[in-house]
C-alpha cells in the first residue's frame, strides 16, 4: 500500500507518484479497466448486428450530502448514466468516470464511493472502462464531483422517442415517486427533519429491457430525475405534440414523502428521483408491460397513472379527486420550501 494519506492533497493531482498511487489503489484496482492505455478499446457482439445503433450519453453528478440513505454520489453517477441509456432503449455497456476531488476529501470516503460505483456497475451489467481524476483546492469543490459518460447499443427494431407517442397511450411509472428528493432534503439536516426514507436510486437497464421484451409497442420512456415526474411529462408532451392527463388518485406516493411535502409546502410531482422512469405504452400491451415491470424489484410498484390525449400540444394536466383539473406546468427555477 503506497497510499498512506488519510486525505487527498494537491499532490494527488500533481501528475507524480502520489497521483499514480491514488489512481492505482483507489480507482484502477477497483474498476479494473481493460488494458493499460489511456483509451479503452471496445468490442461487443451486439455492435455487429445489422441495424444496431450506438447510444452515447454524458451526465455530471453533484449531490449534498455525498452519502445518504439508500445511496451515494458514486451509485447515482452509475445509475444516472445507465438510466439515460436505458430509457432510450439501449442496452448499457460501458462507462467512463471522471472525478473532480476537493483537497481534503477523505481517502476512505473516496474508496467507499468508488466501491459503490463498482458494485452498482456490476449489478447493472456495465463496465467502467476509462476515467480521470483532478484535484482542486479546498473551497473550490464540494468534496467530490463525478462525470460519467456511457455507451450502449440499441438493437435493431427498437426506436423509442417522444415524437412516437400516440393519443391513447397509457402513462406508466415503475414505483413510488419522490423518495430520492425527500430523502436528500431530510439527509441534508438543515431542515432538521428525520425520516426513514431511502433514496430510490437504482439502475434501470435490466428493467427497461424486460419491459421492451414484454411490450415492444412502448413508444417512449424518460427517467424522472431533476424536476421530477412533472418535468419529464412536460418535455415528452411537448415533443409528442399531445396533451397528457394524469390522475391524482393514481399517483404512487409514500406517506413520508407526502409528509415532507406538506411540512415544506412542496409538490411531490417536482421532487427528484434517481430510479424512476415514466413510459408510454399502447393500451393493448399495458398489462404485459406492467407484469414485466412488477416482476423485478426496481419495478415492483409499477402502476398506470394517466394517458396521452389529443389536445393542446405540450399540456400536462392532473385530475383532482373531486373531478376538478389543474395544470401541471414546468418548474420555474428550483422548488423552495415555503411557510405560506
Amino acid at each position, binding site marked *: 500500500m503506497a497510499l498512506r494519506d488519510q486525505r487527498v492533497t494537491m499532490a494527488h493531482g500533481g501528475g507524480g507518484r502520489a497521483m499514480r498511487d491514488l489512481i492505482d489503489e483507489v480507482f484502477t484496482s477497483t474498476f479494473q479497466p481493460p488494458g493499460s492505455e489511456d483509451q479503452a478499446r471496445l468490442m461487443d457482439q451486439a455492435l455487429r448486428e445489422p441495424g444496431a445503433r450506438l447510444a452515447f450519453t454524458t451526465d455530471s453528478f453533484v449531490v449534498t450530502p455525498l452519502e445518504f440513505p439508500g445511496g451515494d454520489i458514486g451509485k447515482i453517477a452509475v445509475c444516472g448514466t445507465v438510466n439515460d441509456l436505458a430509457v432510450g432503449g439501449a442496452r448499457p455497456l460501458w462507462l467512463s468516470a471522471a472525478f473532480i476531488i476537493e483537497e481534503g476529501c477523505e481517502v476512505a470516503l473516496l474508496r467507499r464511493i468508488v466501491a459503490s460505483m463498482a458494485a452498482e456497475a456490476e449489478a447493472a451489467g456495465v463496465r467502467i472502462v476509462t476515467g480521470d481524476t483532478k484535484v482542486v483546492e479546498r473551497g473550490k469543490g464540494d468534496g467530490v464531483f463525478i462525470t460519467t459518460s456511457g455507451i450502449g447499443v440499441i438493437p435493431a427494431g427498437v426506436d423509442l422517442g417522444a415524437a412516437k407517442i400516440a393519443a391513447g397511450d397509457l402513462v406508466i411509472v415503475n414505483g413510488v415517486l419522490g423518495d430520492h428528493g425527500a430523502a436528500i432534503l*431530510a439527509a441534508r439536516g438543515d*431542515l*432538521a*427533519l*428525520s*425520516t*426513514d426514507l431511502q433514496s430510490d436510486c437504482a439502475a434501470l437497464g435490466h428493467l427497461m429491457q424486460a419491459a421492451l421484451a414484454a411490450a415492444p409497442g412502448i413508444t417512449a420512456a424518460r427517467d424522472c430525475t431533476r424536476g421530477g415526474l412533472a418535468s419529464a411529462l412536460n418535455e415528452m408532451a411537448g415533443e409528442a405534440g399531445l396533451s397528457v392527463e394524469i390522475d391524482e388518485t393514481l399517483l404512487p406516493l*409514500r*406517506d*413520508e414523502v*407526502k*409528509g*415532507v411535502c*406538506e*411540512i415544506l*409546502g412542496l409538490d411531490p410531482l417536482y421532487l427528484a428521483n434517481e430510479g424512476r422512469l415514466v413510459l408510454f405504452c399502447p393500451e393493448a400491451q399495458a398489462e404485459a408491460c406492467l407484469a414485466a415491470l412488477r416482476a423485478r424489484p426496481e419495478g415492483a410498484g409499477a402502476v398506470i397513472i394517466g394517458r396521452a390525449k389529443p389536445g393542446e400540444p405540450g399540456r400536462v394536466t392532473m385530475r383532482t379527486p373531486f373531478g376538478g383539473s389543474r395544470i401541471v406546468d414546468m418548474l420555474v427555477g428550483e422548488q423552495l420550501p*415555503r*411557510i*405560506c
Partner: protein
Amino acid sequence: MCLGIPGKIIAITDAGSLMGMAEISGVRREVSLAPVAVGPLEALIGQWALIHVGFAMAIIDADEAAKTLQALADLGEAQETLDQLAAAERALA
C-alpha cells in the same frame, strides 16, 4: 399564508426549553411546545397539534373536528331529502 399541518406530539425532548418531537406522516421534527404548554408537558404526548414553522401552535380539538364532519354528513341527508322532495314533485306534475 401560513402553512400549517396536523402533527402528533410523540415525545418531550427538552422540558426546560419546552421542546418536543412531532410526527407528521412518519416524518419527525423537533418543535417548540411553547404555544400549547399550559399544563403538564407530559399530557401533550399523543395529542395532535397544528404545526407551523417549527411550533405547535394549537392542539387540535377532535370533538370539534367530529362536529364539523357530522355537519357535513347531515348536509348530505338534508340534500337527499330535498332531492326526494324534488323527485316527488316531478312525479306529481
